[in-house]
């Protein structure tokens, strides 16, 4: 456990810490119920501050924009629920995901790498190449949440039974205070099984092997943890629903 962060909680709640400082507090909060409780008290005041603002009518089109965008992300059966079919809005995503797959392809299939590079602007073609990387398996994209927006990872479940599942992350944020990322698989009953624990290597792309097959799990997720083993206790930084091959 790192030193308590009580001196910084007001700054954290008001959003007045710099990004690196905020990450340190977030990491501490993941393992410190006492600081979380104190933050919750402070947040009751901070969350009241918007009440000071003069209400303002948003453009009429905004609701439709939101609902339309959300409706494209409702899970669909089987293979259509991939990153490439649901999350291509931001430019970084395409670049990051393509770069992530490129690293894989370097290791797996140089011919596919050339195909990938020529297909960077063609999402559909990319999906086909991703299929090839997976050896007939499938993949899902985990999007970074909140402060981790901009990070992401693609979970590949290769079709060959002798190949382990793996995740290729892009733009992982550095961690502080001895914390580490943990990759989890979650079943329908809400049981979290740790598939990997790792620290970011500072590169734009990082591959991580999972020690657990994805069969019978319904979600994958990444959290920040203080311990290399044990149950999940840290904050969620990315996640995705998954539908393993054959289901």
């Amino acid at each position, binding site marked *: 456990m790192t030193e308590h962060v009580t001196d910084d909680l007001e700054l954290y709640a008001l*959003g*007045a810490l710099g990004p690196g400082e905020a990450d340190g507090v977030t990491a501490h909060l993941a393992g410190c119920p006492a600081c979380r409780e104190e933050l919750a008290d402070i*947040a009751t005041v901070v969350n009241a501050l*918007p009440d000071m*603002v*003069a209400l303002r009518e948003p453009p009429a089109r905004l*609701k439709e924009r939101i609902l339309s965008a959300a409706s494209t992300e409702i899970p669909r059966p089987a293979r259509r629920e991939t990153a490439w079919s649901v999350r291509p809005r931001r430019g970084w995503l395409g670049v990051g995901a393509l770069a992530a797959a490129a690293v894989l392809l370097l290791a797996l299939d140089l011919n596919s790498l050339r195909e990938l590079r020529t297909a960077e602007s063609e999402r559909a073609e990319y999906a086909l190449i991703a299929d090839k990387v997976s050896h007939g398996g499938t993949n899902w994209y985990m999007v970074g949440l909140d*402060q981790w927006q901009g990070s992401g990872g693609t979970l590949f479940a290769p079709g060959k039974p002798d190949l382990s599942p793996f995740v290729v992350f892009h733009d992982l944020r550095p961690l502080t205070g001895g914390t580490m990322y943990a990759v989890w698989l979650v079943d329908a009953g809400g049981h979290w099984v740790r598939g990997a624990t790792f620290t970011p290597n500072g590169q734009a792309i990082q591959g991580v092997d999972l020690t657990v097959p994805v069969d019978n799990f319904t979600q994958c997720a990444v959290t920040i943890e203080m311990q290399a083993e044990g149950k999940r206790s840290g904050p969620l930084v990315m996640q995705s629903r998954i539908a393993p091959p054959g289901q």
Partner: protein
Amino acid sequence: MAADTPPADDVLMAALAARDLSALAALYDRYGRLAYALAYRILGESEAAEDVVHDAYISAWRGAATYRRERGNPRGWLLSIVHHRAVDVLRRKTAFRPAPLEVAERRAADEDTALMAEKNVEQQTVRLALQALPDAQRRTIELAYFGGYTHVELAALMGVPLGTVKGRMRIGLQKMRRALEGTRA
């Protein structure tokens, strides 16, 4: 969802986690104006505010399963996403320069607030609690929350040590909390 009585926020959050679009629509109807007003107050531009609210609601849609009631109510959770995104956008747009304090305060302060705000009890209570603070504490909180300034920037802007900025925030928020608790008791 039943149509007669509006569902509670917690019910909407559960429905949101179950990917119910009508819950997303209901949360927008309930908090969309406030979310947009908050984003507009921070950014001062309608298009940027619209994009922030759009992204925040989509983020809530994607992350509803991660919501934990013990860390705050759905309204606070949603508005904290809006605030975080709006400040991020603001900081990307405006690299900090040690501007005169008066300029920063004009940007952070909403001069129309008193005229335009709906006169409900909650708004009055929060405004009075903030206005009751000594000027230095009030300005520090406003500049941080609505102006997007970090504590380091605020120390330079106000010409005081970092510890003073931190102390003003802490004492100011403590006083506001006591004032709000007093009126809600």
